[in-house]
């Protein structure tokens, strides 16, 4: 907090904050208003007399109904949810174990291995999807959810591993040593002491992994083709942009509904999330 005169607080704290919040939330507002605006208003030219871009007097649910009746949006939501959940679970499981091993077990080349895992995270997806497409084809996984469930961990596991590695390193070593003197094996010490203490870190890794897979576009676009199998980002953009015609109302409705689950996940775990990323372990 900034102490001192009221004007200082406004200039250095309140006004920048308000600006920031405005900039961040305006796209959401635009999404919401477009979702509920009838087509007649949406395509009204800017120099028309009754042009009012920031408000509508005739809200409508037409676009949302269109989304559910004319497209497979419901299916896309289910697909996305399933793919994101399963790949998050896989990545968390591997990431937590690998992170623990790299942070705590002093095996030869642990440092080099850690760096190698990080480097795989740096390989651009846009290069990786070509060999991955080959693999997906060979295993006949194309156009199934498993194509994504098994490819998302290629970038989620390095991410989770690194986040967890940092978090495990911040946990005092003595906690584990004390547990081992108390009679716990290394594995039990991990299960009973280290993992419960690391819950904030695991949660933030999980939320991040979930969000990344929820929003992922490229692999979903390449590996899935039939409308029934698509995820929300791909489905919305491929089915609601036809040629050069943008169906703005349903597009925005899809984007809005698609961001709701992620928003809910975040709001539930926001406290853990913050302490997980700032790496604070209270002893």
């Amino acid at each position, binding site marked *: 907090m900034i102490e001192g005169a009221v004007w200082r607080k406004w200039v250095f704290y309140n006004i920048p904050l308000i600006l920031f919040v405005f900039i961040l939330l305006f796209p959401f507002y635009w999404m919401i208003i477009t979702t509920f605006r009838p087509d007649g208003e949406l395509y009204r030219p800017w120099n028309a007399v009754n042009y009012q871009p920031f408000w509508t007097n005739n809200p409508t649910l037409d676009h949302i109904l269109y989304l559910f009746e004319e497209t497979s949006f419901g299916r896309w939501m289910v697909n996305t949810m399933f793919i994101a959940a399963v790949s998050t679970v896989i990545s968390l499981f591997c990431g937590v174990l690998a992170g623990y091993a790299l942070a705590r077990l002093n095996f030869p080349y642990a440092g080099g291995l850690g760096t190698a895992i990080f480097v795989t995270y740096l390989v651009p997806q846009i290069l990786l999807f070509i060999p991955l497409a080959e693999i997906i084809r060979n295993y006949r996984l194309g156009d199934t959810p498993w194509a994504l469930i098994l490819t998302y961990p290629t970038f989620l596991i390095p991410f989770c591993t690194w986040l967890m590695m940092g978090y495990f390193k911040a946990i*005092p070593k003595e906690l584990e040593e004390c547990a081992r003197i108390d009679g716990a094996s290394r594995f039990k010490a991990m299960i009973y002491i280290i993992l419960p203490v690391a819950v904030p870190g695991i949660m933030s890794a999980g939320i991040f992994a979930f969000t990344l897979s929820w929003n992922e576009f490229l692999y979903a676009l390449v590996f899935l083709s039939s409308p029934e199998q698509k995820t929300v980002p791909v489905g919305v953009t491929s089915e609601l942009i036809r040629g050069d015609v943008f169906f703005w109302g349903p597009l925005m409705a899809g984007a809005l509904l698609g961001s709701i689950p992620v928003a809910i996940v975040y709001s539930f775990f926001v406290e853990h999330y913050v302490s997980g990323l700032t790496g604070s372990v209270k002893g």
Partner: protein
Amino acid sequence: MALVSIRNVNKVYDGGVHAVKNVDLEVRDKEFMVFVGPSGCGKTTTLRMVAGLESITSGDIAIGDTVVNNLPPMDRDIAMVFQNYALYPHMSVFHNMAFGLKMRKFEKAEIDKRVRDAAAILGIETLLDRKPRQLSGGQRQRVALGRAIVRHPQVFLFDEPLSNLDAKLRVQMRVELKKLHERLGTTAIYVTHDQVEAMTLGDRVVVMKDGVVQQVGEPLELYNTPANRFVAGFIGSPAMNFAEVTLSGANGKLWAEAPGLKIGVPEPLAGRVNGHSGKATMGIRPEDLHVAGPADPAELCFEVEVEVIEQLGSEILLDTRAGNSTFVASVDPMLRTKVHERLKLAINPNRLHLFDAETEAAI
């Protein structure tokens, strides 16, 4: 209850650092043994080797009759208290203390009884439902102690357990630790860098430096007859005064000389000097210096200039200079003197120490 024997133990870390060199000593049954030394002297490494948290490069460590070199920590029947307490943050005080018993599959009723007994001894019965973060530093320290004593281990290991407490609490916990040890009678190894803690707690004290044991002995033994210059300077506060002197014989008497200083070395110390080189280090503790009176023989007196006066109430510490040597003298609190004043100090002849200039061993 058990003795701990450490036989020719060495520790060389992967990077080639030789942290512990040929440590060879025995902690007797029910003894409170304190390891003391500056940081990096290998005391904590030695403790961690006893605990099984570090591997032993060579040598043997036995607890009771069992050589424990290759036993994991859980099988050594020890309990350890860490400097940062290492309380499990997600567990209540009760579960923190019960964890070790649960891991060893004790029955619920027995766990409950032991935890409550330990809590009663430490005065933390009312805190059992709290989480560690709701406790003060002193309370956390007690919980950490409680977690160690519920197990009734053969040996307690303490790794600087008081150094995170404030000065007042540290003194109080020191007394409680001593009482606790008398009550339980368990063999204890205690590591600290604070020589006051070492002197007050230890039945015997091990002084270490650079991975080498310098001296093992009872606190007063270390204080009165230090084995070398390092021990002499490390034990005691304010520290012993040292002056580089030249030894020479004249008129059938041995003299220790430095600029502004000429002291007649008394017997039997003078008799032991034979064979040592002309150079030596003279050591005298501040309380063995006093302002010279008419009864003090001239050969034990020297003139100094007062540089700083530290009034402590119960005594005055005079920081003085004689030639290029400085001396701190603990003198009568009633003494009235001023900075830059010159006065004569006399030494207590029975308490003079000489150390070989090269080996630094006591003469």
